[in-house]
């Protein structure tokens, strides 16, 4: 019994150690690893400043901050792990045929979306296959792939520049709890996108006004953010049956925090604007404001009048009172 425990303990220790060393290896800076091209690309690109105009007409920053890159979660990667087209001669892309077929196919589907290197963007799927698949089926992915639109978030629209992605637990991460609402707002507050896709720009504003949003602003750890209710990679419109906020899934989604949530309860949350579509709370609120102001005016004027009369009594009618007493 005792011996078994000791062996188990040693095995655990070994596991921890091997895990630690494996991780440590991933995070050693590029230069020390002797990769083929990594250090060489960065030799120029970490020093270069400025932007170039691509064939598609996008302005692209040529600078890659080597130090920041090496600290990012993919900092141990050689550049060509993602930029697969740039095999030997870095500035003459090899034929797309050299790129693994599935990635080439994915890249061709999103080439209108990628500003710089569609292959590199599609290369995310090589390691994050399941996530890439669920993104393809999401409302964002389908807008890019099926509807061939340049809008609709791809990996880097939410995760930020692919060279500086850090764990979502770090505060600099664009999808850290502190920043994720802003990341969604990056598109969902844009007037032109709202018009094109018929969604409201008031959604973030209404979220911030809600209890969930207010608690979030104050830094409440349990306050839900967009992704807690709407999913992150597999975002869908609420009318789709697979959406977590679809009518049939809502009790489960709200029930994550509100135990025993019922159908009646889950209607409580909408991002509807107060006013036009929702007149009762709007006018009720106005009524209460009028009440507040009128009470305020009454008590303050009563107070001022009384205070002045007291001063008058003390100063000018002093003798009279003394006489009385």
């Amino acid at each position: 019994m005792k011996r078994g425990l000791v062996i188990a303990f040693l095995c655990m220790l070994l596991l921890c150690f091997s895990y630690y060393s494996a991780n440590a290896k991933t995070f050693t800076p590029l230069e020390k690893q002797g990769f083929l091209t990594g250090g060489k690309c960065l030799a120029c690109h970490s020093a270069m400043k400025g932007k170039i105009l691509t064939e598609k007409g996008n302005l692209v920053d040529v600078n890659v901050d080597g130090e920041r890159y090496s600290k990012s979660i993919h900092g141990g990667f050689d550049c060509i792990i993602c930029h697969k087209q740039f095999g030997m001669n870095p500035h003459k892309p090899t034929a797309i045929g050299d790129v693994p077929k599935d990635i080439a196919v994915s890249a061709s589907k999103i080439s209108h979306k990628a500003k710089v290197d569609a292959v590199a963007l599609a290369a995310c799927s090589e390691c994050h296959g399941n996530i890439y698949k669920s993104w393809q089926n999401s409302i964002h992915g389908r807008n890019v792939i099926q509807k061939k639109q340049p809008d609709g978030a791809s990996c880097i629209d939410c995760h930020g520049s692919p060279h500086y992605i850090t764990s979502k637990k770090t505060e600099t991460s664009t999808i850290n709890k502190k920043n994720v609402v802003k990341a969604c707002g990056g598109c969902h507050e844009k007037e032109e996108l709202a018009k094109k896709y018929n969604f409201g720009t008031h959604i973030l504003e209404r979220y911030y006004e809600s209890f969930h949003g207010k608690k979030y602003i104050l830094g409440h750890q349990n306050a839900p953010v967009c992704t807690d209710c709407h999913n992150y990679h597999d975002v869908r419109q609420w009318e789709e049956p697979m959406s977590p906020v679809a009518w049939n899934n809502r009790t489960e989604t709200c029930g994550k925090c509100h135990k025993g949530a019922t159908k009646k309860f889950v209607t409580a949350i909408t991002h509807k604007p107060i006013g036009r579509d929702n007149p009762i709370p709007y006018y009720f609120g106005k009524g209460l404001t009028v009440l507040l102001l009128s009470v305020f005016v009454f008590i303050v004027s009563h107070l001022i009048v009384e205070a002045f009369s007291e001063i008058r009594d003390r100063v000018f009618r002093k003798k009279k009172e003394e006489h009385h007493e």
Partner: protein
Amino acid sequence: MSNETQKEYQRFNLIERIQHVILFTTFLLLAFTGWALKYPEVEHYSKWWIGIWGGPKTAGIIHRFAGITMLLDFIWHVLYLAYMLSTGKMKLRKETTIVPLPKDVFDFIKNMLYFFGLSKEKPQFGRYNYIHKFDYWAVFWGMGIIGLSGLFLSFPVWASNFFPAWSINWIWEVLYVMHSDEALLAIVFILFWHFYNEHLKWDKFPMSMTWITGRISIEQMKHEHPLEYKLEFEDKKGENK
């Protein structure tokens, strides 16, 4: 003065004083812990302020705890009143009651005339003048509106069972507005009405000690509550003779 002559009058008994202390401590706690949630968009200050109360989570717990304590205090007060009235220990008399009467309207008008120098006569108040009555009944309004909406907002799943189907689209917004706006009203009310009348007034500053001792000097009683004084002392004197 002889020993027989009373110097002070017991205005509030111990139970009433305890109820008042619970009421104002929970009120202050509720106002302080709820404030940051009212204006969180002023991020720097709201975060600093909620930090003083142990962060949003702890402040939320304090807020709920204080809210429930306040509601229990309120229920205790109502039951206490019912007991006192039913056993005859407290009597409804026009000179001592807190119930608003037509006289209060006339008192208000008289008082205004006096304030503006149009009349030289101050109104004669009973145990509670219209200022006290306003102060007292405002708490009932607050308990009903803020207390009830707060209870519903704390237990939303449970509360949703009570609301009819046609109201679910707007009831939560209404509850939120009720809780938040009326809380602001309560704070403004206490800050201006109660603080002025019980703390800042010339002869009360910095505060009247009645809330601790429950006593009030006979001189002050004659001055502020002449009708009650007459009822308690002059009439009794007459009876004794």
